[in-house]
């Protein structure tokens, strides 16, 4: 069936091209709903008078037919700007909006969205729990920037409290975080990687800006999925982050396939860096207990002699932590503004 351009029967405004022949269009100007075939029209229901628009001074953008209010920029990735936004309606939804800054990287954003959709569908053991610690796709499509250029954008759910990347934590703890805190972060990361690997994927970019921590709940999320691959397909990494070259095993940059081991090496390098150490050699500052420092040094190696499996490595971390600090206990970790 051919899709035709419709005009709103209520006010005459042009309607966007429908995404499906049996879809419903909502007129941006008068709120009327029109079926995509043009056959049926429902006028906008009367609205209560007491509902002022949310933050009318904030900019609005539309992705896939839904309008969002931009609340502010959360950060900048290698190729995208990331915003906190909310659906511009009374029944709202807090979201993270990722918009490409470098237009040529639109394909990476598409890739990321598709991989995350697949991971959310995964039935691998632990999927119910761990899929909540991955970005959750909501919508994607082009947005128009202020100059009218369409830019690829993806919308993900906002996860309350997961708002401090390793990079920000390291800024705050300039001489390195408490090793006991680094231990729980590493363990959470390894559990998550364990699930991802079981689902058949390697993340391929376990880097400080991609690790988000929930300080109060000791939670960790993994973002930045543009480089992930299904490792059984033996695909190469599509791209790497120039600013974080040191965190990649050299073989990956030469075009070798990412696999669970490369993720584990990168995870150790991130933890080493967070502790104030050197990600490449795994050399640690003096405050890190020897058992943990040793393990990190071994795991930062390009080809670690032990532990090709995330769960096995987690056991080793447990062991090293016990040797260094005794039986596990809850360590209060905080960032500015947190109680």
């Amino acid at each position, binding site marked *: 069936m051919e899709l035709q351009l419709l005009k709103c029967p209520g006010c005459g405004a042009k309607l966007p091209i429908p995404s499906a022949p049996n879809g419903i269009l909502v007129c941006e100007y008068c709120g009327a709903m029109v079926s995509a075939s043009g056959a049926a029209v429902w006028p906008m*229901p009367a609205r209560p008078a007491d509902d002022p628009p949310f933050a009318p001074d904030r900019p609005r953008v539309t992705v896939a037919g839904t309008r969002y209010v931009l609340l502010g920029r959360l950060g900048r990735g290698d190729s995208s700007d990331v915003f906190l936004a909310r*659906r511009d309606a009374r029944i*709202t*939804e*807090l979201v993270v909006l990722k*918009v490409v800054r470098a237009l040529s990287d639109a394909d990476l954003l598409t890739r990321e969205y598709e991989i995350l959709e697949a991971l959310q569908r995964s039935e691998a053991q632990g999927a119910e729990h761990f899929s909540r610690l991955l970005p959750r796709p909501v919508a994607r499509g082009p947005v128009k920037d202020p100059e009218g250029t369409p830019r690829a954008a993806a919308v993900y759910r906002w996860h*309350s409290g997961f708002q401090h990347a390793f990079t920000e934590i390291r800024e705050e703890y300039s001489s390195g975080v408490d090793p006991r805190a680094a231990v729980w972060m590493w363990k959470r990361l390894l559990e998550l990687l364990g699930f991802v690997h079981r689902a058949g994927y390697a993340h391929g970019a376990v880097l400080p800006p991609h690790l988000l921590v929930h300080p109060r709940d000791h939670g960790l999320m993994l973002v930045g999925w543009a480089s992930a691959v299904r490792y059984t397909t033996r695909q190469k990494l599509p*791209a790497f*982050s120039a600013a974080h070259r040191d965190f990649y095993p050299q073989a990956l940059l030469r075009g070798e396939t990412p696999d669970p081991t490369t993720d584990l090496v990168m995870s150790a390098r991130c933890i080493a860096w967070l502790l104030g150490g050197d990600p490449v050699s795994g050399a640690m500052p003096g405050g890190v207990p020897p058992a943990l420092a040793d393990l990190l040094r071994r795991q930062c190696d390009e080809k670690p002699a032990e532990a090709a499996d995330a769960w096995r490595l987690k056991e080793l971390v447990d062991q090293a932590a016990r040797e260094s600090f005794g039986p596990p206990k809850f360590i209060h970790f905080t960032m500015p503004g947190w109680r």
Partner: protein
Amino acid sequence: MGYGGYSYEAHETMTRVRAVLPRQEVFKQRRCHPLMEPHGVKWRESRDSDAHPKSLGIVFSLDVTGSMGDIPDLLARQRLPAFMKALLDAGIADPQVLFMAVGDANDDRAPLQVGQFESSERQMDQWLTWSFLEGGGGPAGMESYELAMFFAARHTDLDCWRKRQHRGYFFMTGDERPYGYVSRRQVKQLIGDSLEQDLPVKHVVDELQRTYEPFFLIPDIARARNCERDWRELLGDRVICMEDPTDTVEVAAGLVGLCEGAFSDLDALARHLKTQDMTRQRLGAVIRALTPFAATLGRDGIPRPRLEDDYLPTNDGESGHRRIG
């Protein structure tokens, strides 16, 4: 409706005696109770009275298909008094609760059953246990939730809204997707209204939220995977995914408490729940279920993320990525 006082003790005693009865003894109905037939009902009213000067209308629309029948059962046996108590504790003086039961209009004999708004434990319980737990359901992963929303939007009248512009609450439990349209034919047959054409479900939600704060509660994470995304398109962060259906009551009462400002944030709610003899594990599950919605209210008890005031990028920025191969 809505006369009669509420007594937690009486209610608690009433539910306690049934804890050991089989489900058929509690829910005796084998077809839609004649008083719960929606056909021809003009209004279900939640009204202020001398005894309840500040009524607040609350609709519980319960999915009664298949395994979802556990929730009405759970409410009738144990949890409904706790819900009322939680509301009273949260400072909601005069809650009036209406129960609806929802099935599938294509397959079930009683796809929509509607009680009355009640304030007293005996009457509230009566409507709940008059519900016919048919246990059927549709074949296609959908149920007729949209009919319940349609009924609430067009056939209920709340004094809290009419007199005080204060919205009531509409809770729906379920584990399937809604149909995309309210069928003109089904509405005629079940409710008796004449529509000119089928009504998109989005439109119904829009009408419903004029007078209600709607929420959709999914009983557990496994079942969320079937339907969460579709519901989130309609209800955004008002889709609450629980970890266990036994938490329905605390979650619903927590939502009312957060919206009404009885709890300043999730920390305050957690402190309140701690006094209620709740295990640490269940407390955590309730707080986790409520967190995304609390975040949209700015009541998640977490500092606001560091935000830079900025608009979308322009021009073609330089990529920090280097391609391989």
